[in-house]
């Protein structure tokens, strides 16, 4: 019999019961909760008179609606404020292991605070009413987004009704070139398989490039699994995983730590495991990526030119290109490096960890944001990231260059708070979605790595980071 994949191991170790059609009841270890997708779930619990199954599984925090400046003024928008206050009262009523209310020193994006507090651990099932829950798969966990009805189901039963997905191995071997980051790897994968390429699959990222990435880098890669259509992305646990977790607030301690580390060593695909699909990519061929359209699969290397719809033979694809160019205000065949920017956003659960900020600061140090840039924002992923960056003096590097240094949160990743693009404005963003209107109605988003965003801020247009060294 063939060996097991990491996904098999994680799945099998959480099946409570299985029905004849393969539908399983899957036990959930960690439930991350934020203000946007939870109010209706708590309301449903209340209406049905149900109790939370296990409050020690819940880690919660508002992030989508919270402002990133003038915290002393509170949340100005009354609708946003109500949503955040509703989370406060729901957690108070139902309980949680960790709750960082608005303005708490540790508050941040839920996908940043889970790992940094040691509440995301290898071997866990992790869910959240948020599609970027795939981020936590970087720890050798089975992590994926769920809808609000499922949030309620997990709150009430600690389980999820689920059917096993197919497995896909994305193997990236070789060595990354200088200036090529985890973000570029993730975008290149999406460019290769498309935004629906991973639909129905759980992706395991492997190969020397992935092994070589830091935990932050692996989180960036897994974060973007959902943009390739896969609900979950994962990376086998290894020494780096354990080293990252050691000593974190909720990581196991003492004898439990040793036992945990022993167990985590089993969390990898067996050598003879068989995947339903395998994608192999040569890491050395990956170049810094820039999205030009309104879907993450509309991505190209920095040296490329904007696609020409007249050269596309598939009519649906041609229309997609035409629509995207029109929305993005770009002309076919123009070099990507000619694209001029209005705003720069460094942040989001994709790229707002300390390593991302260090990388961006490294590019910016001693230089100035171009005068044509209306606003350049750095929004750290969490209070902890912010403090760490300030200890290292990164905030100074950013502010001296002309960036604004803000309070943590989702911010302009989805523009539910005051940070947003005006219609027609163009942004180099380290976030994960370049959908129409994502960063503000009519706003135009180009997804890039922190280094590429930083270099674009200085130049006022995209530049090949490799020419900046």
């Amino acid at each position, binding site marked *: 019999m063939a060996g097991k994949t990491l996904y098999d191991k994680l799945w099998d170790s959480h099946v409570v019961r299985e029905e004849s059609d393969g*539908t399983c009841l899957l036990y959930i270890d960690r439930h991350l909760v934020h203000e946007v997708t939870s109010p209706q779930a708590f309301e449903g619990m209340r209406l049905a008179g149900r109790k939370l199954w296990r409050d020690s599984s819940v880690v919660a925090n508002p992030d989508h609606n919270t402002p990133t400046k003038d915290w002393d003024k509170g949340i100005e928008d009354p609708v946003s404020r109500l949503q955040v206050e509703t989370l406060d009262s729901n957690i108070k009523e139902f309980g949680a292991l960790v709750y960082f209310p608005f303005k708490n020193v540790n508050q941040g994006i839920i996908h940043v605070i889970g790992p940094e507090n040691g509440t995301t651990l290898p071997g866990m099932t992790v869910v959240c009413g948020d599609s970027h829950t795939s981020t936590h798969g970087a720890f050798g966990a089975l992590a994926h987004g769920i*809808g609000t009805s499922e949030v309620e189901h997990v709150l009430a039963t*600690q389980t999820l009704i689920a059917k096993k997905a197919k497995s896909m191995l994305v193997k990236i071997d070789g060595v990354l070139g200088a200036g090529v980051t985890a973000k570029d790897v993730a975008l290149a994968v999406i460019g290769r398989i498309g935004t629906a390429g991973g639909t129905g699959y759980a992706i395991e990222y492997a190969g020397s490039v992935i092994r070589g990435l830091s935990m932050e880098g692996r989180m960036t890669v897994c974060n973007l699994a959902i943009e390739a259509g896969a609900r979950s992305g994962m990376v086998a646990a290894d020494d780096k995983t354990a080293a990252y977790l050691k000593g974190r607030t909720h990581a*196991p301690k003492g004898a439990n730590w040793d036992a*945990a580390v022993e167990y985590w060593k089993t969390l990898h695909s067996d050598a003879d495991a068989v995947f339903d699909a395998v994608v192999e990519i040569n890491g050395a061929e990956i170049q810094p990526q820039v999205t030009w359209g309104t879907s993450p699969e509309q991505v190209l290397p920095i040296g490329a030119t904007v696609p020409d719809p007249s050269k596309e033979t598939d009519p649906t694809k041609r*229309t997609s290109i035409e629509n995207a160019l029109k929305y993005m205000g770009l002309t076919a065949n123009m070099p990507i490096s000619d694209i001029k920017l209005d705003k720069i956003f460094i942040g989001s659960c994709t790229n707002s960890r300390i390593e991302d900020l260090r990388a961006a600061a490294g590019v910016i140090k001693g230089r100035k944001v171009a005068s044509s840039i209306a606003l350049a924002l750095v929004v750290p992923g969490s209070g902890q990231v912010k403090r760490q960056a300030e200890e290292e003096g990164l905030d100074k590097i950013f502010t001296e260059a002309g960036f604004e240094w803000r309070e943590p949160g989702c911010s302009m990743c989805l523009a*539910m708070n005051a940070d947003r693009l005006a219609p027609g404005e163009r942004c180099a963003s380290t976030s994960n979605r370049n959908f129409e209107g994502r960063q503000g109605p009519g706003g135009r988003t180009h997804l890039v790595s922190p280094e590429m965003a930083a270099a674009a801020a200085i130049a006022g247009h995209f530049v090949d980071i490799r020419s900046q060294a």
Partner: protein
Amino acid sequence: MKAFTQVHGLVCPVDRANIDTDAIIPKQFLKSIKRTGFGPYLFDEWRYTNYGEPGMDCSTRPLNKDFVLNQPRYQGAQVLLARDNFGCGSSREHAPWAIDDYGFRVVIAPSFADIFFGNCYKNGILPIVASAEMVDQLFAECFANEGYKLNVDLESQTVTLPSGASFKFDITPHRKHCLLNGLDEIGLTLQHADAIKAFENKHKATQPWLFA
């Protein structure tokens, strides 16, 4: 949950691939703490020419006349027809809530994003995967014939075209059972509370750190 048995409904063709949940219901409407009232804001940025805000009275907003949903011939549609990868992007259940609140009961596309697909069932909406050729045919027939209706029957898992031709669709027995009977999944799962407890105790014994 609302039960679904059969729908004989007008079809509205939204001829685009990769329709994401941000397009289905833009984020400003996610600030609501309710499950209802999203229908008027379905496809908000395509449907109106001004910027929508939660609580706005949509009856007075300027409509984008080119958008299919606004064309008189599609008013009252219950079947939404779209292209590949419908519902990609954010996991927001506000997307199926908006689709349901607008009055759609069925979405037909060649493929769906996973989370959206699952969310539909939880809200009494039937997502149907049809072959790309069939979807092409449905679009063509729908554009050519005003008042184009499909008959969707869950029990027999069949969609019948006006011509009498039909095709079958897949659904897992569990989902079909819940949808046909409008069952509350949480209540069903809690019938297995003892099994969950037993699993939890065993899990705790082997990985105590997960419960620390």
